[in-house]
């Protein structure tokens, strides 16, 4: 059957089971939009800015585990999308981005709305393709989904010139593809796993450190089982939150720059460390030299060999699919005659509980004058029964959400950990809501971040997305102000925002409900009222304590245990 390139594109997407694509039209993709119009399998969601299209597809993917799809036009469509693509790339999110390109005969001639899309996106995609021949379109799209979703996932871009989307070709969607140059490893090496199990059982002060890879690999149940079988402490990275239940007593909290006292001290002082789907990045272990000072043996499981021994030399590397590796580990553990060293473990837990006793996340809960941002998150957790999808922007509010919303399930915490993209929160929440129309979705944001993609309030209206926006409004670029206070002599250079909009009126003008909350005692009633509005987008503007900072904090360049625990340490 002869179909146009545009029709082929839509057929392929339907074949891949894509239910939503997030996009924005323009000249180079007009044939594709025409094909969208003429079918009803794949629904198109019209956003208000291409960055948001990609973030929405990203949020959809993070929450559902299925690849997100975005569609943008050539030139400015693509350049607007780049921030979103890089955001997905740094967090290894499976996604396919389809971009229009000028007609093949015009490529290289500085045509209207021409940019070298493959060149611009190359460093921030897992892979990209320029389709020059319509006969190769279907196979290329198949490859794009294959590459995006296998191995260490990531965004893949397919650039389709306008004439290619118009030309006809025989349509035949390949059932599978194989690429001689791309063979993601699956099973971990059984011998390495054996060594790891041995090492884990010999540990006196063990620690399990799990990251976003566990969520991406859908390995949370196995990880949880492993942690419980061993009885060892477990910490999560910012990207890993929810992969081990936060309300479990074996959970010692998030680690890293804003990690808990007990997580960072256990990380530093353990004698055997099992790292699962985490990459020892600079926000997690702080100064690497300081980290090395305490000797420990390290086992590292990751699907990407280049993540292993990149920043930290490890003793037992295990490259493989996390599910397979953990299954094999559990099997070997069950068969092993040795058991964890109970007395050593008891002493270790005693030590950890002492660290816990510092109660590093305490804050002034009794304040009745001014809203403490932490208390907003704690209320949010209560009001949503700890069971909402929480997206976030970037800044202090993000860290408070990570610290105070106890995520018990994977894929509930959606944030830009790697790139740290302000503007991510609202559009990603839209993607989550499309993936789970009946679930509660809240976006925790700040008055600065929300303004980076505020236009998406319009998309929320068009598609009746009942997202609840929790704006922690401190009138500052709070995280910037915090660093200025700590490292730049308290000089608030350009971190105060004048002339903020009236967010209540702003929300109303977009057709939504807006609340402004000034007093601590109003937090809970306002939230209950907002979440009861099941079919409305509600913007909650919380006027929070302007001077509050995020603690604990490992200042940049310092070691993990060199934490500031509160303003009194300043």
């Amino acid at each position: 059957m002869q179909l146009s390139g545009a029709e082929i594109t839509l057929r392929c997407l339907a074949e891949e089971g894509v239910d939503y694509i997030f996009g924005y039209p323009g000249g180079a993709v007009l044939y594709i939009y025409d094909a969208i119009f003429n079918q009803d399998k794949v629904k198109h969601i019209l956003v208000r800015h291409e960055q948001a299209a990609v973030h929405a597809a990203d949020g959809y993917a993070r929450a559902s585990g299925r690849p997100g799809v975005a569609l943008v036009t050539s030139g400015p469509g693509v350049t607007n999308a780049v921030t979103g693509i890089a955001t997905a790339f740094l967090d290894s999110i499976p996604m396919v981005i389809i971009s229009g390109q000028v007609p093949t005969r015009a490529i290289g001639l500085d045509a209207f709305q021409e940019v070298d899309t493959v060149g611009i996106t190359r460093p921030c995609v897992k892979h990209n393709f320029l389709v020059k021949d319509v006969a190769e379109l279907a196979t290329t799209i198949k490859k794009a989904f294959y590459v995006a979703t296998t191995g260490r996932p990531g965004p893949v871009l397919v650039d389709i010139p306008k004439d290619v989307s118009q030309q006809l070709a025989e349509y035949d969607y390949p059932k599978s593809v194989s690429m001689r140059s791309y063979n993601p490893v699956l099973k971990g090496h059984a011998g390495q796993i054996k060594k790891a199990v041995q090492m884990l059982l010999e540990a006196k002060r063990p620690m399990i450190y799990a990251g976003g890879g566990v969520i991406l690999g859908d390995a949370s149940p196995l990880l949880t089982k492993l942690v419980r079988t061993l009885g060892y402490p477990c910490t999560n990275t910012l990207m890993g939150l929810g992969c081990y239940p936060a309300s479990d007593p074996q959970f010692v909290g998030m680690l890293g720059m804003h990690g808990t006292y007990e997580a960072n001290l256990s990380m530093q002082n353990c004698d055997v460390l099992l790292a699962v789907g985490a990459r020892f990045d600079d926000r997690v272990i702080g100064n690497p030299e300081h980290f090395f000072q305490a000797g420990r043996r390290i086992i590292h499981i990751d699907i990407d060999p280049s993540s292993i021994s990149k920043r930290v030399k490890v003793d037992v590397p295990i490259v493989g699919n996390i599910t397979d590796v953990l299954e094999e580990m559990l099997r070997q553990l069950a068969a092993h005659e040795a058991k964890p060293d109970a007395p050593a473990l008891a002493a270790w837990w005693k030590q950890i509980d002492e660290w816990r006793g510092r109660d590093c996340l305490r804050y002034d809960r009794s304040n009745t004058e001014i809203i403490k941002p932490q208390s907003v998150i704690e209320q949010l957790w209560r009001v949503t029964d700890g069971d909402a999808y929480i997206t976030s922007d970037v800044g202090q509010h993000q860290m408070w959400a990570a610290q105070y919303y106890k995520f018990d399930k994977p894929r509930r915490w959606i944030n830009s950990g790697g790139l740290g993209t302000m503007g991510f929160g609202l559009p990603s929440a839209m993607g989550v809501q499309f993936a789970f129309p009946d679930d509660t979705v809240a976006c925790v944001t700040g008055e600065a971040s929300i303004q980076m993609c505020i236009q998406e309030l319009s998309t929320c209206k068009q598609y009746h997305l009942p997202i609840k926006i929790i704006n922690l409004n401190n009138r500052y670029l709070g995280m910037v102000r915090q660093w200025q206070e700590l490292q730049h002599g308290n000089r608030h250079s350009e971190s105060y925002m004048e002339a903020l909009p009236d967010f209540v009126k702003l929300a109303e003008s977009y057709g939504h409900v807006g609340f402004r909350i000034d007093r601590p005692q109003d937090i809970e009633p306002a939230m209950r009222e907002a979440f009861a509005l099941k079919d409305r987008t509600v913007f909650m503007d919380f006027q929070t304590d302007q001077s509050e900072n995020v603690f604990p904090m490992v200042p940049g360049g310092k070691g993990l245990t060199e934490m500031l625990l509160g303003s009194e340490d300043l």
Partner: protein
Amino acid sequence: MNNNRHILSLLLENEAGALSRVAGLFSARAYNIESLTVAPTEDPTMSRMTIVTSGSEDVIEQITKQLNKLIEVVKVFDLNEGRHIERELMLVKVRAEGKDREEIKRTADIFRGRIIDVTDRIYTIELTGTHDKLDAFLEALGSTQILETVRTGASGIGRGEWILRV
């Protein structure tokens, strides 16, 4: 740090863009690159690339892993891990006048170079060898005036049965 010189040999898909992915990787991650050569193999769908780089063992390990991660790269070998042969081609244009002409010719002979173009004032010499040998030749030219040099960068291959293919 021990910044050893390494010769990496790659097989990659002979596709537009594969080269820029490799080059982009080196610049993006601030890896050293001394030379890079690439051309199609006997199988026209595949290219063979030789990259000469330097770095500590950890850096070289990362480079190899990152190269392997590129979707179009089929195989990566660090030739330093075994016995191998390295060759580079150089063309040198020198001022050759009067009594210098004999001297230059003799030096070229010693290095098994060939004079491939002659005018009454110029020799163009072709020379193949390792990087070091080519450097040594340029030094041996002494006071001779070098007008131009072109070097291809190294190509490498394993010795004997050590064969790099898919």
